[in-house]
């Protein structure tokens, strides 16, 4: 198993180095192999992690909870690596375009590497460092397009997210202070001893550390009211970057919050940490649902949908019932697959019509024989229609809400998710189902896909959503159950 951890930490870096120097075809192959290999490596980890932790040295540790988040990143890394082959095919004509393609490919590999590294860190200090690395790498990727919008979005992103992480660093320091009281000086903030000692930790510093961590890492998760960078960055980044940002980066930041949640719950009891998460969750969900009603831009629409889903995750954790926690972890996976699909589909659409706003696009269903219908199905999956994974996960979260007698919040969740669905459906319907002829006078766009490489990963994502919704594999179910048990702590 140790070799698997090493592979996850080495393969993306090699792929990034190759992408900087090798010819285009070799770059594509190596990136795709690193992506698919990482996904396969995480799958290999599932049966082991479902029963016991895997550790390497004193600073790498993987338990069921980490594997769930590794799985989300691993899948998206593989999908995006394949998608990139089609995405960059038309982009390698001039030296400038070639340089741009190299940077995008190398940057994506490093971005994926940092997100794979974060859940493997056994120390809260290193976890913070890894998440800070994800920020700086992804900020450069957001700026890569070189447009005025991209420069603006990248600046807002790096400033707001870094300030948020400054707050999270304060949280990390207070976690150290709390641990030091029990575990002694020069203690390295490793998670397991901290969790074991949690019952004896002084309460005020733990409280402070938890709130600072939720606010700080929550900036990167996209919790309201510190989400303001998110729609800009998601809409201005290249489509493959947006897919990773939304499906994986937000989840990895949420993972950091979950680690602090585990400690806070063990030290303070479940009341306080759950109340904090519930507040942020409901505020984010409410804000996102209302924002979704008035979006014209396809990628901003999906960005606000990410805020919505992160709100659902926070609410799910705050319910605390085992079924809700399993639902939360399933939701992380299903959201990664669905949102990756959505952004990759949006990328095809925007490339096909060479626009950015939905208003310029009509008749996607006619003109894109594969991507049109796939995007429509993805939007339905994203809105929690059965039989897809998100339906299953949200159903479990709501059921958990009723189980833990949080009926009102479960009802609020259902209502707001429905409002969000209305917003998403109204916009995407016009774009996909409207007649193609009345787009811009006589239509000059011919029917057909830009590239088969951009369709295959979306199809794979849909298969994953179906599997998660209809019949999750037994090993995965075990993994989710163990992850939920870790989150719940000893009863």
């Amino acid at each position, binding site marked *: 198993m140790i070799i698997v951890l090493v592979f996850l930490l080495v393969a993306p870096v090699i792929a990034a180095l190759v992408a900087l120097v090798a010819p285009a075809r070799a770059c594509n192959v190596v990136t795709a192999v690193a992506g698919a290999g990482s996904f396969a490596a995480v799958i290999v980890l599932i049966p082991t992690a479902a029963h016991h932790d895997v550790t390497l040295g004193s600073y790498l540790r993987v338990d069921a909870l980490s594997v769930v988040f590794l799985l989300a990143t691993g899948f998206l890394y593989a999908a995006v690596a394949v998608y990139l082959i089609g995405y960059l095919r038309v982009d390698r004509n001039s030296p400038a375009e070639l340089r741009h393609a190299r940077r995008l490919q190398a940057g994506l590999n490093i971005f994926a590497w940092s997100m794979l590294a974060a859940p493997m860190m056994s120390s809260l200090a290193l976890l913070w460092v890894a998440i800070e690395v994800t920020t700086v790498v992804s900020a450069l990727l957001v700026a890569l397009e070189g447009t005025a*919008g991209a420069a603006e979005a990248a600046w807002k992103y790096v*400033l707001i997210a*870094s300030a948020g992480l400054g707050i999270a660093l304060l949280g990390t*320091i207070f976690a150290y202070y709390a641990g030091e009281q029990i575990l002694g000086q020069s203690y390295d903030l490793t998670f397991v001893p901290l969790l074991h000692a949690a019952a004896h930790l*002084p309460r005020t510093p733990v409280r*402070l550390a938890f709130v600072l961590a939720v606010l700080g890492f929550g900036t990167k998760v996209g919790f309201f009211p510190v989400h303001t960078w998110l729609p800009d960055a998601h809409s201005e980044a290249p489509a493959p970057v947006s897919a990773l940002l939304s499906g994986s980066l937000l989840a990895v930041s949420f993972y950091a919050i979950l680690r602090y949640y585990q400690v806070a719950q063990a030290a303070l009891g479940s009341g306080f940490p759950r109340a904090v998460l519930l507040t942020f969750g409901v505020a984010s969900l409410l804000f996102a649902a209302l924002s979704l009603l008035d979006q014209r831009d396809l990628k901003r629409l999906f960005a606000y949908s990410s805020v919505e889903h992160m709100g659902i995750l926070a609410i799910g954790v705050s319910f605390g019932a085992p079924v809700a926690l399993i639902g939360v972890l399933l939701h992380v996976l299903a959201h990664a697959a669905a949102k990756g699909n959505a952004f990759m589909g949006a990328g095809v659409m925007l490339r096909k019509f060479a626009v950015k706003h939905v208003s310029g696009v009509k008749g996607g269903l006619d003109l894109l024989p594969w991507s049109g219908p796939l995007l429509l199905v993805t939007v339905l999956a994203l809105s929690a229609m059965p039989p897809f994974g998100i339906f299953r996960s949200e159903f479990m979260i709501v059921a958990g809400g009723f189980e833990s007698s949080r009926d009102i919040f479960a009802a609020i969740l259902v209502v707001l998710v429905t409002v969000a669905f209305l917003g998403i459906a109204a916009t995407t319907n016009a774009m996909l189902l409207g007649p193609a002829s009345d787009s811009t006078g006589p239509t000059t766009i011919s029917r057909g896909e830009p590239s088969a490489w951009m369709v295959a990963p979306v199809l794979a994502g849909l298969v994953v959503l179906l599997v998660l919704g209809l019949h999750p594999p037994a090993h995965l179910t075990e993994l989710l159950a163990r992850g939920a048990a870790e989150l719940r702590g000893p009863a």
Partner: protein
Amino acid sequence: MHTLAAADPAPSVFAGGSNVIALIVLLLEFGMLRQAMRRDQIRLYAVQSAAISVLAIIVAAARNLPDLYALAFCSAAIKVVVVPVVVRRLLPRPGQQGAGDEIAGSGALSVASTVLVAIVVAAFGFFAIGTLPIRSPILPITALAIAFAVVLVAFVLMILRRDVVSQAIGFFSLENGVSLAALVVAATMPLIFEVVFLFDLLVAVVVFGLLIRVHHGRAESLSTSELTSLRG
């Protein structure tokens, strides 16, 4: 506030001295907040970083924590020398478009209102943390309260200034506030982490610098007034 109550014994020279240095850090933050010249703002940041390194050396000597000497050295090398040099080199050359050093007009409020807002915010941070039952064997808790005030004033700086260099300096000085807090409650943290944090800051500085370049290349100014197209 507990530490100011008349019944308390007078603070030791060490406690009093370290509180004074912490206070200097806060005053320098206010200096950055109202500074009218970009290059002076960067200088103030360097002085603030130096003050924190000095405090680290004093703590290392008084509390017998030799690791802190190394930390103070690394911190000074990066935050007093490298970061200001990097940021200054990124500024447009004199004569280039948007090269004016004057940033007095970049505040969203007048200087007086900005400082008033910052005083209120700093007082909130100071008294809110001062009332918490957190005690440290390393430094008096007043320094922690001041560290929070520094962090909050850094936020005011980032929010109210409308030019990218001031905003970046605001973030770097926020990190100084966190370093000050770390000296109080986490001075015994393993050196390796502290150094990793510093290198992380260095990477962030380079990325900030690249994005400032990108912005200047497009907008031909360092003002954020152009950065308003994305909304909704």
